[in-house]
């Protein structure tokens, strides 16, 4: 759930600028295997992490450039990137798990780190990554509300032409949104790789749909110009609860994937209605 949350934050930002990023799950895998392969080859951890970041940002940059300068539909560009990144990750790993036994132990510990909290004699674990996720929710919410470079995402998404005539660098702002999405994807890949102690080309399958569903449930509009990080957080929470519900009710957990689709379609439908009413 924490992973979905981080990806959903990036997705929300991309949706605000009228984009969409379907490549998040695949780029996550590609970034993860890059880091894992380098660490397996005894490259210093920080250097390996930086390489993973560069790979993710490169994918984000290509997405942004093709959308903005190439004028191709974001849906198509990132759908292509989704396939390219997944393919590359599979090729370089030949589909194997990539472990990195020689990496320092701290790296494979922090992804699973939990704070222990005693309440009434029972000990609950509070995962570090959940706290990180919540911290990012708070920070990005604040920045989107008050920080001018982030505020401009909304203006660009609401009306790119008006934003341009208002003196905003629309191209740069849109590309920045894709780069931010890639940044969150890299961070998710980092946590996943650390927690599982392996890099894997099949990480993040379906992540784009969950993030999209969460973002749209949380109020992001596919028409751009609207979106809320806190809303996306609630969206992630809702998807997690639905998933959990299937387990609790002894249902088949495989229904979870179907439920994500239903939520996505319902949310997009409501968004379409809302947009229609607004523009009427």
């Amino acid at each position, binding site marked *: 759930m924490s992973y979905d949350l981080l990806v959903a934050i990036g997705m929300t930002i991309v949706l605000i600028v009228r984009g969409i990023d379907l490549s998040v799950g695949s780029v996550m895998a590609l970034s993860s295997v890059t880091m894992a392969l380098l660490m397996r080859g005894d490259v210093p951890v920080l250097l390996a992490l930086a390489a993973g970041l560069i790979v993710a940002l490169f994918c984000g940059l290509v997405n942004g450039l093709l959308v903005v300068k190439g004028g191709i539909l974001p849906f198509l560009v990132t759908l292509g990137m989704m396939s390219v990144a997944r393919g590359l990750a599979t090729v370089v790993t030949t589909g194997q798990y990539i472990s990195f036994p020689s990496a320092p132990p701290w790296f494979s510990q922090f992804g699973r780190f939990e704070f222990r909290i005693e309440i009434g004699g029972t000990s609950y674990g509070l995962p570090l990554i959940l706290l990180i996720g919540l911290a990012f929710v708070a920070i990005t919410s604040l920045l989107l509300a008050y*920080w*001018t470079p982030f*505020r401009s995402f909304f203006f660009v998404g609401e009306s790119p032409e*008006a*934003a*341009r005539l*208002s*003196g905003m660098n629309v191209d740069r702002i849109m590309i920045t949104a894709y780069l931010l999405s890639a940044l969150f994807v890299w961070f998710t890949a980092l946590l996943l790789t650390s927690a599982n102690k392996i890099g894997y080309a099949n990480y993040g399958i379906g992540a784009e749909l969950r993030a999209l569903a969460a973002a749209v449930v949380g109020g992001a509009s596919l028409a751009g110009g609207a979106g809320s990080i806190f809303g996306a957080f609630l969206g992630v929470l809702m998807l997690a609860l639905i998933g959990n519900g299937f387990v609790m009710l002894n249902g088949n957990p495989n229904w979870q994937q179907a439920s994500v689709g239903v939520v996505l379609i319902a949310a997009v439908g409501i968004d379409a209605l809302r947009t229609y009413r607004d523009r009427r």
Partner: protein
Amino acid sequence: MLNAKGVSKSFFGNKVLDSVNFDVRPGEVHALVGENGAGKSTLINIIAGIHRRDSGKIVFDGKEVDFAHPLQAMEAGISVVHQELSLVPSTTVAENIFLRREKRNGVGLNDWRGMNRAATDVFRRISIDIDPNALAGSLSVGMQQLVEVAKAIALDAKLIIMEEPTSSLSEKDTAELFKVIRDLRQQGLGIIFVSHKLSELFTIADRITVLRDGRHIATEGVGSLTRESLIRMMVGRNLGNLYPPRAAAIGDVVFKCENLSCFGAVRDVNFEVRRREIVGLAGLVGSGRTEAMRALVNADKRASGSFWLDGQPVRIEDPEDALAYGIVYLSEDRKGSGLFLSYSIAENIGASTFDRYADRFGFLRPSALRTRAKEFIKRMDIRPPDESARVINLSGGNQQKVLISKALDVNPKVLIVDEPTRGVDVGAKALIHAQIRDLAQSGIGVIVVSSEMPEVVGLSDRILVFRNGAISAELDNQNGEVTQETIMTHAVYQ
């Protein structure tokens, strides 16, 4: 043929129509006028079945009617030609006319020949010449307007409602449209004509009904009305002189443009703007006025052009550069490329000047922005006077005031306003004109692009007439003596 009595309508407790009476006789052009928000659109929407009335009675064609849906009104014989054209650009003219009522041949495929023939018949009826096979998107706005009228006629409409039909038409297209309207009147159709352009009403209308604040003020024959009496009834007061007084002393050159060209639209345009001067750009629609101004800030890629600001050469690669120099272009399309419709008045006003309302780390100080917005709301008389109101809910005139406030907040040196008062009511118009004059007086150079010739003549100190992408005449208008005829001679092909 149409008789509406005591029609009332409220939205969310706001009475927008208060027992209004309105009637149309066969073979009559009945104009409906009033300031924005006077209730014209609501009345029309009720007649056309888009809204339902709260109370009152409407008799059409001898039967009492209460349409629940526009389609019912259409079937009864009432068609609306909306201000925003609704043709599908990528399909043919004939297809558009028969949209959703396509003629089929025996196997259920579209009967192209039949549709084209029927379309041609309709065109002949209103004696216009349009190829039914042409793509709707390839026609000029004026021609598209006529296709909309043809569509209404093909539907056997008895009453045609036209909303601001000439707002984006050139003088020539307007004349063509009026010819068609006269034809239809001859054939016994009733026409409701909504327009802000008062001069047109006297040319085309038989009777005029004035609404104000949702109430019926008067219905009179054109003969017994004058422009002044009409304006008085619309605003409920004397507006005095429609245009602000001219500049006292025009200063030195603030902005110079040389050799501005843009592929296919603008050819070698040279001009200067002086401090405290308003330069009006006149010309027919498509003559390159708007295109030249967009090319100036490089909103559309230009082929060539050099610019000087205060005597210094400046490079303008995109609107961002222009803005940094204090050169602001306000689009004619305020909804599409001027305003951020879903956002508040305050956010729109600050859209170009964000950084001024942020601390040195870039964090917005919302209170600073709100205070500034309040100043503009007061200065421009923006209604509602609430800086957090969403712009989408404002009337056209108030939206335009927000747009101009946004430009003023930049403290521009050169302000380019494209169609500053399109679709804006008389009261707001006077205010916007006064603000533009004030702005020029404060020492900046102003360029006003307008299709409304009275506006160009009334407002500008100098007039540049565009024809076919180039400036065809420069007219000194400091004493306001340039006539519309003079402009027209330079605007049309010889």
